[in-house]
């Protein structure tokens, strides 16, 4: 029987790409290295793009879409659980009427758990984690950034045979507009009335927001992106296991896993099989919903399943399915803006003149950003001539004057410079900014956040000096794969 995942019929853009070769990724293969990605909001019309592997269509439609109606055998989570055991943490998703999926619990350096906007999260804790001297244990949760603190009682005063408080599960609904992370901590009160509450980032749950994209891997070996894959939003993966069955020569795969790697990091392995947790439940196929980290610039996926005594891979012939990740929504994390407002380097940069669209990062700098590259640090030298050469390689020509007027048919890059600190010598280039289609500028500020600002002069000051040269080329057409 087919597990068919249909392509939403209302999507206007048909897939016209080629059908990829049905070759499995070999078990020993490493994840393919990441590629420079040319997709960011300054070129906002460039929708999520499948970089390798299979053809893709992209359409700006809501992800909580009819795609789900057309996928009766693929199920999304109806709730999540965060379980604090005595010696570790376990994360799972519940699928009402079907069963449960154990989810990866993270590396311990960030969120261990998963949650989804508008869906319940249940927190369970082993009483053995808490001293018998406690009189009260409460769960404290807060959406970060932006949320307020909420408290759910977990103890009712009764105790077990060891004298420890009996703990009840704490269930609450994640706010429907939530994004970011859910901060979870336990507030304890001891017999003397002393209250203790410590937050540990590995207690967090990553929240998949309602906004995001669904990537469908269909039975006919096509790949489709509905919505826009962007940092901070959710990424839903609808995978038709008949693909692996075909690769395995007709053998039905088991233990099917989606491997998801952001920025070439070790993959998150998400089971795609729902395991019945009560007799009579049918199980089924799981459609995971993951939060795309703010730091992500690209994501690669591949799939694995067991068939008989072998392992089958669906990995675009070992290249993996790769997608670029767009920048985050404006001020998705207020700390980006606050960081720059604290800086003394930019006296002109006031709160009303810019928004933060990406986190601090050593992954790329301003010059890389102007080149559409968010994976490298680029620095050709400090002389203006060094930048003339760099941008000439990209088809840019320098203008005779610092002409910052807006022409939607042209792409403009402006570089900044100042006199050397020694007081003599040629101008030293300090920064580059890119003008977008609407005449606004985007700048990656050193190792600090990526911002969009109103004018080039917003960054004039003691650190960057002032705009010294403008480069121009015809605006590149939006990337289209259809």
């Amino acid at each position, binding site marked *: 029987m087919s597990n068919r995942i249909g392509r939403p019929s209302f999507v206007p853009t048909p897939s016209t790409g080629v059908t990829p070769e049905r070759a499995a990724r070999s078990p020993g293969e490493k994840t393919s*290295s*990441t590629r420079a990605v040319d997709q960011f909001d300054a070129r906002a019309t460039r929708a999520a793009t499948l970089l390798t592997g299979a053809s893709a269509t992209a359409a700006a439609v809501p992800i909580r879409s009819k795609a789900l109606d057309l996928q009766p055998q693929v199920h999304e989570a109806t709730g999540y659980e965060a379980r604090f055991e005595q010696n570790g943490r376990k994360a799972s998703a519940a699928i009402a009427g079907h069963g449960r999926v154990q989810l990866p619990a993270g590396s311990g*350096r960030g969120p261990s758990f998963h949650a989804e906007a508008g869906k319940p999260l249940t927190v369970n804790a082993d009483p053995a984690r808490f001293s018998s001297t406690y009189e009260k244990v409460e769960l404290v949760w807060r959406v970060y950034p932006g949320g307020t603190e909420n408290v759910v009682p977990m103890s009712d005063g009764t105790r077990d045979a060891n004298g420890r408080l009996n703990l009840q599960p704490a269930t609450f609904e994640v706010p429907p507009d939530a994004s970011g992370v859910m901060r979870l901590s336990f507030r304890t009160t001891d017999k003397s009335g002393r209250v203790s509450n410590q937050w540990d980032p590995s207690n967090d749950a990553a929240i998949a927001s309602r906004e995001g994209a669904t990537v469908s891997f269909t039975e006919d070996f096509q790949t489709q992106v509905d919505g826009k894959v962007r940092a901070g939003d959710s990424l839903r993966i609808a995978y038709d296991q008949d693909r692996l069955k075909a690769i395995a020569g007709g053998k039905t795969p088991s233990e099917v896993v989606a491997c998801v790697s952001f*920025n*070439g990091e070790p993959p998150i392995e998400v089971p795609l099989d729902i395991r019945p947790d009560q007799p009579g439940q049918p199980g089924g196929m799981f459609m995971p919903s993951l939060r795309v980290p703010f730091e992500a610039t690209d994501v690669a996926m591949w799939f694995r399943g067991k068939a008989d005594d072998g392992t089958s891979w669906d990995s675009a012939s070992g290249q993996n399915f790769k997608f670029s990740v767009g920048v985050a929504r404006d001020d998705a994390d207020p700390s980006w803006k606050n960081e720059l407002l604290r*800086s003394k*380097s*930019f006296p002109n940069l006031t709160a009303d003149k810019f928004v933060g669209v990406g986190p*601090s990062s*050593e*992954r790329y*700098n*301003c*010059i890389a950003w102007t080149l559409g590259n968010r*994976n*490298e*640090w*680029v*620095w050709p030298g*400090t002389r203006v001539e060094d930048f003339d050469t760099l941008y000439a390689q990209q088809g840019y020509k320098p203008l005779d004057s610092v002409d910052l007027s807006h022409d939607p048919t042209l792409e403009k890059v402006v570089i900044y410079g100042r006199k050397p600190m020694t007081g003599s010598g040629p101008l*030293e*280039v*300090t*920064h*580059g900014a890119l003008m977008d289609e609407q005449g606004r500028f985007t700048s*990656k*500020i*050193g*190792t*600090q956040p990526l911002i969009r600002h109103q004018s080039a002069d917003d960054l004039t000051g003691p*650190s*960057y000096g002032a705009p010294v040269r403008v480069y121009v080329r015809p605006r590149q057409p939006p990337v289209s794969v259809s």
Partner: protein
Amino acid sequence: MSDVAMRFEALAARWEQHCADHREASNPYVFLEHPSFDALVALGRGAVPLIIERYRHGSVFWGAALRRITGITTFGEGVVGNLDETRRHWLKWWDAHQGTYTAQGA
């Protein structure tokens, strides 16, 4: 804590503060051109294990210090390019060569 380790910790803190003070800079040599970075490099091979530990989760520009101490050019200067990838290369290198450095001690 050994003498090298104590000196390293003090210098590393100074250098990281220098980088933080210039975090708006795009020119990577702004980070490197500081007496504390030169002093870190001058610590020599004994500093390599300490740098590796900082490098794992700290600044990607630690690769530039490794490059200068070890003389290994395979992974570039450590200031431009895909610096995450450069870090992965150095950490893999360390897995293969750490015996050479720890056996000699600081």
